[in-house]
């Protein structure tokens, strides 16, 4: 399973993402956008857009990365998505997928962004751990337990769209993870760390093959990356299950 980890100036979570794929048994490769040419993506089984601050995020987060991808290899990306191969974006990568119009993708790929990841309600960057509940089984979540913990680290992560789009996302079963509070009550801040509508933390497109998530599964791959491992021992980090689901799914698809 060949995974293209896309890079440009300012992406900075590529190394831990690389390790996560490698540990799961995949073959990740760094692919700098400056070295990306037409026809190149086709040979990969998956595209992964890591977190960071692509081009500094001095304008809307992810907008520059998306514009460069569109200018360079837009047709290849459309073909990749239409062929059913998985595309995943974490944090800044999720922002890029929204800017590209690949997410929420309620009716396939959209010409213009249908949603936004807005500035957090707290109006600042925050790095903290959140509790998540799995809402739908997808190729990215099938092996994930119902409740997991992952870290968030962003200033722009408030998922927002018109009521109409939100309704479609919900009706289509596109919500993959929601922020929850540890005691099961409505997740107020900081449990919903950014003010996302319907506590949405991760979504998939209507085809089920493009996945965007604000929290960082690659930073919770190993048990000792969790903040509470000194009190709650675990065998594996919660982020592992997302990579595991993907790996199994792709290998099954390939062997069919």
């Amino acid at each position, binding site marked *: 399973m060949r995974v293209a980890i896309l890079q440009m100036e300012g992406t900075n*979570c590529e190394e831990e993402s690389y390790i996560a794929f490698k540990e799961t048994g995949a073959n990740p490769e760094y692919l700098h956008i400056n070295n990306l040419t037409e026809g190149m993506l086709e040979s990969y089984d998956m595209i992964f857009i890591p977190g960071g601050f692509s081009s500094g995020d001095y304008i809307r987060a992810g907008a520059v990365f998306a514009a460069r991808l569109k200018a360079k290899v837009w047709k290849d990306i459309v073909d990749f998505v239409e062929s059913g191969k998985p595309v995943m974006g974490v944090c800044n990568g999720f922002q890029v997928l929204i800017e590209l119009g690949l997410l929420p993708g309620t009716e396939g790929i959209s010409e213009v962004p249908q949603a936004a990841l807005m500035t957090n309600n707290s109006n600042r960057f925050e790095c903290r*751990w959140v509790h998540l509940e799995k809402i739908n089984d997808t190729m990215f979540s099938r092996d994930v337990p119902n409740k997991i913990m992952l870290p968030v680290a962003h200033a722009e992560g408030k998922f927002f769209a018109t009521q109409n789009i939100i309704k479609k996302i919900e009706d289509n079963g596109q919500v993959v993870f929601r922020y929850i509070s540890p005691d099961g009550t409505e997740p107020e801040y900081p449990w919903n760390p950014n003010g996302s509508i319907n506590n949405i933390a991760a979504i998939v497109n209507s085809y089920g093959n493009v996945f965007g998530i604000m929290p960082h599964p690659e930073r919770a791959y190993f048990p000792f990356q969790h903040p509470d491992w000194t*009190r709650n021992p675990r065998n594996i980090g919660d982020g592992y299950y997302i990579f595991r689901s993907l790996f199994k799914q792709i290998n099954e698809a390939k062997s069919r």
Partner: protein
Amino acid sequence: MKLKKIATGVYEVNIIDATDEELDEINNTMGLALSMDEMKKIRDFFRKMGRNPTDLEIHAIAQGWSEHCSYKSSKPILRKYIFGIPSEHAMIVMQDDAGVVELDDEYAYVFKIESHNHPSAVEPYGGAATGVGGIIRDVLNMGAKPIALVDPLFFGPPDYRGKLNKGIKHPLFLINGVISGIRDYGNRVGIPTVAGITYFHEDYVNNVLVNAGCLGVVKKDKIVRSAVDKAGVKLVMVGGRTGRDGIHGVNFASKILDEKSEEERQAVQLGNPILKEPLIHLVLEANELGIIHGMKDLGGGGLGSVVGEMCHAGGVGANVYLDRVLLKEGDMVPWEIWVSESQERMLLAIEDKNLPDLEKLCKKWDIEMSVIGETIEQKNLRIFWHGNKILDMPLEFITAGVEYERDYTVRRVQEMQEIPPEPNYRRVFLKLLSTYNIASKEWVIRQYDHEVQGRTVIKPMHGIVGYESHGDAAVLKPLHDSWKGIAITTVSNPHISKLNPYLGALYTVDEAVRNLVAVGAMPSSMSDGLNFGNPERPEIMGEFVETCRGLGDAARTLGIPYVSGNVSFYNEAFGKNIPPTPVLMAVGIIDDIRNAITSDFKKEGNHIYLIGKTTGEMGGSEYYSLLNASSTIVPNVNIEKTKLLSEQLHSAISKGLVESCHDISHGGLGVTLAEMSIGGNLGAEIDLKNMEHFRPDIKLFSESPTRWVCEVKPENTGKFESLVDGKSIGVVDGDRLRVKDGERWLFNVNVDNMRDIWKGSLKKYLR
């Protein structure tokens, strides 16, 4: 000042015939910040040469001789006390831009702490950001991958209502500017900020202190030195372009601040993390290819310092063609190019045959490069400008600089300690939790990404998610295939150093050890960031000497070397000097990160131990400061005891006998217990009767050194007691912290109540 134009933008300055008044005029007009003696030394030099210098030559000398570059006031003292502490593992000590220490057979760690005080006082956002940028380059230029940042900060109180001198900005403005500057740079460049200090005191209203430290890892066989040792090697600038930002930064840093400092905004550089991020990749990939012969970052002093120091260190000279430097502004003149401190620039020494490889990497990462010169055998620096030779001097004269044995006096404070009336314990305990130096710093910590790179296995905040409290140190797991960990902490105790710089230094080293041992690490090495006032004042120089003597004595006894460091003098404004503020960035090694522990209480029924002896010196304590009670007597430190107890405790933690551990510092035992309760969301029942015989407020709030609180499972108490010399003081229990001294109950407070007060205090200043 008599000038003669000799090329575009280059003048000859008549210094040979200058009178003393004219020397003074040259010094002021050119912004050199040199002393009269130094100006005379330059005049003598050129009289001997039999010619007048160009303006560039004078600027180059001023830069090389600035306090910031030459350490002219501090070097003799540092040599006596700080340098040369023997260590088995230290590899490169106080030579290049950062210290290098062995991590295991294959890897070394590299680190340094540095100050960026003056720029942050004038332009807090940009000053703090470039402070982070600069320290990253210091680690990068050793060939190391930067994996952690720390940021000790010292401000005036956020609610300061006193008078502000002209040009001095309100602490709240500085706090928000500095913290956002660090956040926006550190987060963008993708290096986690894992430790720091946010200290508030009126002593810093006029002089904010912004220190930044960075740690990296490198394979031992890939360490790059900041030296070129053969002729014919090309000097290549990579990264950012050279502009007018940061001109005379080092001269600015070697002056006191005044109402005109605002006009020196040009001395503050502009950072660009999104140029730095790919530059890090580029440098590391070039290093992996083995094509870097020598490397140094362009920081204080700019190109001038770097070319000089790199060649001087390797025993060669250089030809530099200034017209080949890529510029932000086309009309810059040679001296500006030579001294500019524009950010994100590195100088690489590359052999001809390897230039194509470097070009390829630059193309991939979209980074500009320019070959600006080459090394030569003759030990001279020669600079050319569109074919004209505009500088030709022996490197020795420019870089070896000057040294001063400055006069100093050691101030002795009359020893006295007031005994205040016994307080209402509950009220004073809760009040202490809300004082700015004790209250939760979560609002700062969470604005920094401390998780990026996925190596942070013990976070800066410890405890149940959503209930976390302060920890003593962060732990990183630097290598993918090894369980080895690196613990990092930063410490400073200006409230003690102010009363007694020598004992303050001992106390600070002791606290560094306490913090590292508390997470299960063994101290390995330190970097010293020494922030002081104006060294031309004998009493300030006395504080510096006493501090260094203390830092040296403590570290030598413990066998922990200082491998890198920085001195920031001239933290004076409007006649006010900062208190002696030695900041330590200390690094410990933990053989297996799975044995690391945190500070939060884990389980009801576990026993609580107090390790170390409590004493009654209350000078500098938060408790006395809160009561406005006076004491000039500060705690002494028995460093032999520090060594003994830290080894005992480390051994117990390594054997898995300790569930949680927290050192006792600001606010004493009371605050330590509160933080352990807050993080674990668990109360405790504590009895102080087994402690040394003091009034309960001294037992609770004394900040005497070399003490920890440990939580131990009932089944492990026997084994623990056989290893560690500690006193049982209670058990983890319920949801309230209940404290008595024998039969007398002192207070009984709900954990949620404590947390709200502790977390709420600084929250209102959060922007």
